[in-house]
């Protein structure tokens, strides 16, 4: 039997009918066509599927859609403040060369967002710990760590104004 749930995703309200075993990852990707959130392992080990639920970073592959009924979800598609600006985390990823294939990027950015909300001035070690559930096969992480440190500085200075693309 399908369940009716309400989700707020990136500021938009949705009412959906979902099977009780379907994950949030499936519902975002397949029902809402929000494919920026990836699936890397389906068992909570790689971080590619990370989204924010009520501001906290969560693996969407391990989260049942019915369990987040009524909650607010932020995905990578909700990160840029507008069509013409990027979030400082996104801008820093570009500037520091923190992207190669880009498959891990959305998850990394969402965890970075959560981390920097919790801890606006993380040390390098704290950034690495904040990303410890994430795997990247391309970059070796160091540029990602640099990007997040850089974004933390910018966010502290201007409070998260968008960066013009």
């Amino acid at each position: 039997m399908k369940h009716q749930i309400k989700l707020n995703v990136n500021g938009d309200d949705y009412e959906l009918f979902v099977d009780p075993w379907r994950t949030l990852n499936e519902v975002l990707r397949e029902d809402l066509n929000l494919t920026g959130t990836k699936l890397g392992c389906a068992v909570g080990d790689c971080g590619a599927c990370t989204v924010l639920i009520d501001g906290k970073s969560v693996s969407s592959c391990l989260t049942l859609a019915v369990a987040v009924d009524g909650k607010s979800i932020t995905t990578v598609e909700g990160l840029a403040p507008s069509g013409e600006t990027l979030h400082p985390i996104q801008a820093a990823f570009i500037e520091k060369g923190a992207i190669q294939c880009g498959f891990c990027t959305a998850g990394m950015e969402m965890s970075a967002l959560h981390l920097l909300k919790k801890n606006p001035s993380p040390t390098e070690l704290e950034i690495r710990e904040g990303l410890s559930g994430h795997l990247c096969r391309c970059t070796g992480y160091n540029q990602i760590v640099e990007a997040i440190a850089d974004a933390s500085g910018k966010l502290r200075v201007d409070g998260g104004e968008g960066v013009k693309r």
Partner: protein
Amino acid sequence: MEHFKYVGKSVPRVDANVKVTGEARYTVDIAFPNMLWGKLLRSPLAHARILHIDTSKAEKLPGVKAVITGKDTPFTYGVTHMDQKPLHMNKVRHVGDAIAAVAAVDEETAQEAVELIKVDYEELPAVFHPLDAMLPGAPVIHEGVEGNVAARPSYENGDVEKAFAESDYVFEDTFETPPIAHVCPEPHVCVAKWDHSGKLTFYVSSQMPSLARTHFANFLKMPESRIRVITNYVGGAFGSKTLSRFPIEFASVILSRKTGRPVKFQHTREEEFHYSTLQFRFVITVKTGINKDGIITGRHFKAICECGGYVSHGASITSVAGALQGVLYRYKNYKYDGYAVYTNVPYGGAWRGLGNPPVHFAGEAQLNMIAAEIGVDPLELRLTNATHAGDTSATGALVRSCGLSKCLEKVAEEIGWKEKRTNPRPNHGLGIACGVHFTGIRLPTMPDTDFAEAKIMVNDDGSVNLTTSCVDLGQGSNTVLTQIAAEVLGIDMDRINTIYGDTETCPMEWGTRASRVTAIGGMAVKKASENARDQILRAAGEKLEINPDDLELKDNKVLVKGNPSIHMSISEVARFNRYRENGQAIMATNHWDAPSHGNISSAFSFGAKAIEVEVDPGTGRTKVLRVVVANDLGRAINPAGACGQIEGGVHMGLGMASTEEIMLNEKGGMANNQFLDYRVLTPLDMPPITPILVETNDPVGAFGAKGIGEMALIGTPDAFVSAVHAAAGVWIRKLPVTPEKVLLAMKAKK
């Protein structure tokens, strides 16, 4: 040095914005409203005869639209040996060999149906290590291949036996590297979609979309023009998405034709770990003769490559690694014996470095063992024997440019080689290694070419559409190719749209592989751009009534040299040329075949790595404190991108060195198939990395460029193992260097 506006500049990736926003669509993101999901039935046995396949129950399951077996896929394929079949009817040769495929309304139903297919097997004795497979009386895996040796590539130059007899010292050591996974973040995935005009559109995450088209046109006996292969953004490939075809690809194509609906197949992470091809296991014995002055007198490699159930790239890799090893040093006497051996493990494939990382590991680790044994500095030992520009290798390769010695000197200087070795800290150690890799590849087992193609079209507004035969897998090729076109055409990068990965619009390609895109793909772009530039200058010359030789392209304009007040925008030129009487488009194509005839490659990139490691003597745990890498990449078109390749290459190399290993249980099944038990290094594991770019301006590559993607990795395990020895006094000859191995070796030494 010439002044460039774009070449040599660290520009941001051209695809960065769509990647940070999640807008970039990968093949995993492709879906159609009426799309079916496919699943494979894979063999649970490593070696068995198939007696009977019964799909009747699966066919009856509600939601199942079609079930196919080997009868429906009568194709034979392979890389050098045509020993593979998409779905097996008679025999399976490794756990995971595919037998049947199902298309159903959703993934769960497809999986349920697969479990309803009944197969009767007669189990056969199996063998899981190449040394066992080569023993007399070992199970025969492919009819007619006694001893399971599928190929025996070899090289010989001089007389190694004589050299050994006359040397001051002779050393012989054996090394082993395990099977390793590529761990593509985006697993192997495809969607096949036939329409009722009989046209096939095939979406696949691939390094060679053109080859997929060629293959399927041959298999299906249909014109290439009726097949469109589309490769969207690719979530990593590392060699696994090149020449190999995968059972999921055949299954999706045939099931889509049968059902008239799009069919998607995607490896689960478990399948991806084991069945997306592996870096082959290698067992390598190196025998080296050397004199007191440090000159290597002769070297003999015996490299046994475990292909697994099928040869796949095994034969070519075993060959290439031997050819390349001969390029590293000035060997007067060199011998290489390769063995590509069948076993009943999942088969391997091209893995970043094409067999070069394992064979280098053996050669370079042994050189460091020798240095320690005879009391010479491993850095000096390398400098004494290093190859130089102008050399022809023992394996017949002409080396046109070579920064090997410079790379060695640079890493040594940067890490403080001399000082740190003079005053060693307890439990700390330094290791060094170097390497060579090709830029493009020409193999006797493939058509004799090493080409790339590109096409430039100038639009009315003076902007440019560039179609390329190279796929951006994340390595940043689209950015580099855009830089090259911008440089030649004098057009801003953001006025160039670089398009790849669609066989319907893009020129033919020979693969984004073998570290060939920047140098060879770049040359096709450069030459097509030069052709378009000449057309622009000619047209402008006519309009301005000035000799085209007196014109130049700069800042999106045609200028008169020395008199920039007279100019025309490129848009004006393009429109003039198109709309005049007998108008013409400004359009150019290029097919560039790198001049490597008779050679394995047209250019060789060199590199060196120095690694500092700390070993905890209580636990055997290793901690990498720093990695310094110097790469001779000819010319860095995009230095930031090149450094990114180095960072990522070192990450994979340290994984190969310290944690990564595909393990099988005693029945040949998967023992580790998730990230929890196959350890990819995490953000907390990574040391600081210092990349140094050494430019040697190669005479062949675009703007002097050579490859870097694979060389970035090569040498990492070699330097790491040597650093562990310097810190803990033990040599680990079998990768990965786990704490248990270090601890055991330390105990054994006491």
